[in-house]
């Protein structure tokens, strides 16, 4: 145990030291720490005060808190289960396999220590962030409710929520591991496991969908309708353990509910049962950990090297007895200069799986459109504008599905600079050629998505166009900003660096959509048509991109890919 504590403590301390080992990193780290302390720490540490007269205090009402937590829990359950079933958890590394597993430390201790420290890190972070907002919201609500429950109850509720949230996540994580181990040890066939996962997923999606189609009322609240299922079977019993977590968060406002002890019992029982199963599977633990570690290495390689992707693709094709191919027009087109970079990027992005992203995007759009149509057939009174707005939100978030592959692409771009810098192509052209390819993938996906939805809902074409033009051009801006962040902070070898990059990413997400937001706000005030707003947003984003490309090119000139 001492050795494991030493390992994790030293790695954490060294990671922190590393964040200050050069001026660039130091400034970035300090800026982020100051931001976090300023935004989150200040308001929490300040003494409770009545909001100043005339100042509207933004607080989440209980309904939204419960809905948010429930959504998060259900999403967490599905994500963690899939993460483990797909061997995606980051709990183990190749370093553990080489250094830790051959040692005489008890197998179960090593496995569970790594699983819970690394596997639950995200959950603990999530619990702390929600807990923070919970304390703030509850405190504000209590101040507004005359004769409300004391502040202590709010804090007690937040602590209870965080504990139950972490226990629930630990149980879910273990459940996934038990599933993985049962397949590896050949106790359960892979097909059976996938059938069970698919069935659970269908229940999680199907029950709310059925409830919404059955009980939604015109003009009714979306969250309200969804939450109503917690009082009617089958949702009331199916989502009970998740509801317990949400109820725990609202103890200060609505007191202790019967769902809480039941939920605590359910999650604790699941945890204990999984522990017992893990004990049975202990001989296979290291082997399973190797599977997970190898999976992680492959994914890291994918992020780092296109050659890995291309190699893996070639192997798959080899198995199918076909050859690596390209588009015919690409073979005929032989450009020169910066266009040659674009030509190469098109080939690479095709083999990188860029087209798959387009297919998935269009597929989801079609399914969503058909789903909305189906809902309208079952519920003719359902308001189309609300459904489309909901669909629009999904589409908007779908854009973010491109972000990981975009970051992978841009990270690889930095590595390619070693080959590209000696080429007689100006920095600005090089940067433009590198950015153009991933943007093109999103633009094509957007066009297809827009076409599909316009066919399904022709009357809403202008609103849809506004949405797609705004999201697509905002994404262009986002790519540019991400590239600049990567140029300034290319090294993401440790968790802290990745965390810093993650925070920068969040800032980029916000900044990238500010020009569009300004255009839309101005358009709404001036009663401009949605189509015009969309075009103006596109042009504004393009105009904002130019200085960013110039800045990236300046940085490219001094960037050393070998450092």
């Amino acid at each position: 145990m001492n050795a494991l504590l030493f390992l994790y403590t030293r790695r954490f301390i060294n990671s922190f030291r590393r964040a200050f080992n050069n001026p660039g990193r130091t400034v970035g780290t300090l800026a982020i720490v100051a931001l976090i302390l300023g935004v989150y720490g200040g308001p929490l540490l300040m003494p409770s005060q009545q909001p100043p007269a005339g100042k509207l205090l933004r607080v989440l009402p209980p309904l939204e808190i419960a809905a948010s937590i429930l959504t998060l829990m259900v999403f967490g359950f599905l994500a963690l289960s899939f993460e483990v079933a797909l061997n995606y958890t980051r709990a183990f590394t190749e370093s553990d396999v080489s250094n830790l597993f051959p040692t005489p430390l008890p197998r179960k201790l090593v496995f569970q220590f790594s699983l819970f420290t690394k596997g639950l890190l995200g959950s603990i972070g999530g619990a702390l962030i929600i807990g923070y907002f919970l304390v703030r919201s509850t405190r504000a609500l209590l101040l507004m409710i005359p004769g409300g429950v004391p502040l202590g109850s709010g804090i007690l509720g937040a602590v209870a929520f965080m504990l139950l949230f972490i226990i629930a996540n630990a149980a879910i994580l273990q459940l996934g591991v038990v599933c993985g181990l049962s397949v590896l040890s050949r106790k359960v066939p892979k097909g059976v496991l996938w059938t069970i996962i698919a069935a659970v997923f269908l229940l999680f999606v199907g029950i709310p969908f059925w409830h919404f189609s059955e009980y939604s009322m015109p003009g009714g609240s979306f969250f309200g309708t969804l939450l109503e299922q917690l009082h009617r079977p089958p949702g009331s019993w199916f989502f009970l353990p998740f509801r317990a977590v949400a109820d725990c968060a609202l103890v200060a406002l609505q007191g202790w509910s019967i769902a809480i002890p039941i939920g605590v019992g359910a999650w604790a029982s699941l945890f204990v049962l999984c522990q017992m199963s893990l004990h049975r599977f202990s001989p296979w633990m290291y082997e399973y950990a190797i599977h997970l570690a190898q999976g992680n290495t492959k994914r890291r390689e994918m992020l780092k090297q296109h050659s890995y992707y291309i190699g893996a693709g070639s192997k798959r094709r080899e198995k199918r007895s076909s050859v690596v191919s390209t588009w015919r027009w690409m073979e005929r087109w032989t450009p020169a200069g910066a266009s040659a970079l674009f030509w190469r990027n098109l080939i690479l992005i095709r083999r990188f799986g860029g087209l798959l992203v387009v297919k998935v995007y269009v597929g989801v759009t079609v399914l969503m459109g058909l789903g909305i149509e189906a809902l309208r057939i079952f519920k003719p009174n359902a308001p189309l504008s609300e459904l489309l707005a909901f669909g629009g939100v999904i589409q908007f978030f779908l854009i973010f599905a491109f972000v990981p592959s975009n970051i992978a692409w841009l990270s690889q771009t930095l590595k390619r600079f070693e080959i590209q810098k000696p080429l007689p192509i100006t920095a600005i052209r090089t940067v433009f050629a590198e950015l153009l390819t991933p943007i093109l993938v999103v633009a094509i996906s957007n066009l297809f998505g827009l076409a599909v939805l316009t066919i399904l809902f022709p009357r809403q074409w202008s609103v849809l166009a506004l949405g797609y033009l705004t999201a697509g051009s905002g994404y262009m801006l986002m790519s540019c900003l991400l590239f600049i962040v990567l140029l300034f902070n290319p090294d993401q070898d440790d968790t802290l660096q990745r965390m810093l990059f993650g925070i920068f990413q969040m800032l980029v997400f916000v900044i990238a959509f500010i020009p569009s937001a300004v255009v839309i706000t101005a358009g709404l005030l001036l009663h401009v048509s949605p189509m015009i707003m969309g075009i103006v947003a596109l042009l504004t984003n393009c105009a904002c991109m130019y200085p960013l490309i110039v800045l990236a090119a300046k940085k490219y000139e001094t960037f050393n890919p070998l450092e």
Partner: protein
Amino acid sequence: MTALLSISHLSKYYDGIKAVDDLSFDLQPGEIVGLLGQNGAGKTTTLRCVCGILRPDGGRITADEFDLYTNESGAKRLMAFVPETPNPYDLLTVREHMKFIAMCYNTLEVFENSIEDLLERFELKEKENELCVSLSKGMKQKLMIACAFVHRARIFLFDEPMVGLDPKSQFTLKTELHRLRSEGAALLISTHQLDTAEKLCDRVVIMQQGKKLAEGSVGELRQQAAMRDNSLEEVFLRLTEDQT
């Protein structure tokens, strides 16, 4: 003489494919055994089973009097494993990494007494306070080898130990291997460098498609291949080609 490491009827499957098939051989104290074979022959899988990382589907492994499955901790205490790919923890310094390994084996005393000497011998002294992430591949390999010496192991398992080492480090390692042999340790070395194996190993086990194809000293293998003064490389090629 009692074997220090005994592998008997070892089998290991991956998705129904036999990676190691009914493999048996022993290592005596003061003996260096080379594990040879083409890519995919099952050498790394064998080493990973022996050091307790992988769970075999059949067979028994004993280190001295300890059975690896009934007394895993006792057996592992006797072994030191150097993997093919050097993967030290990126965010530990060289010294911290070695200390961590010593802590795992509960041999901090040995570590404290031998650390300076090890750092010197493996040319790690200048890098002792640097993070492993900043080391070159060769330096990482030296670190992984040095870690094998921070506890009182009697069985040493090396997977391609010479890869990535400069000539001086290769010489240092060979000297260390000879020293270990003279002290009575048993060494199992998986390698593709047949000239090194020929000079270094007392005995050689040749694997093919998970099975033991041949076993013996280089002289015995020559006889088996019906060759006289040929090198181990030629003997190996003859034996493996005969089977394909």
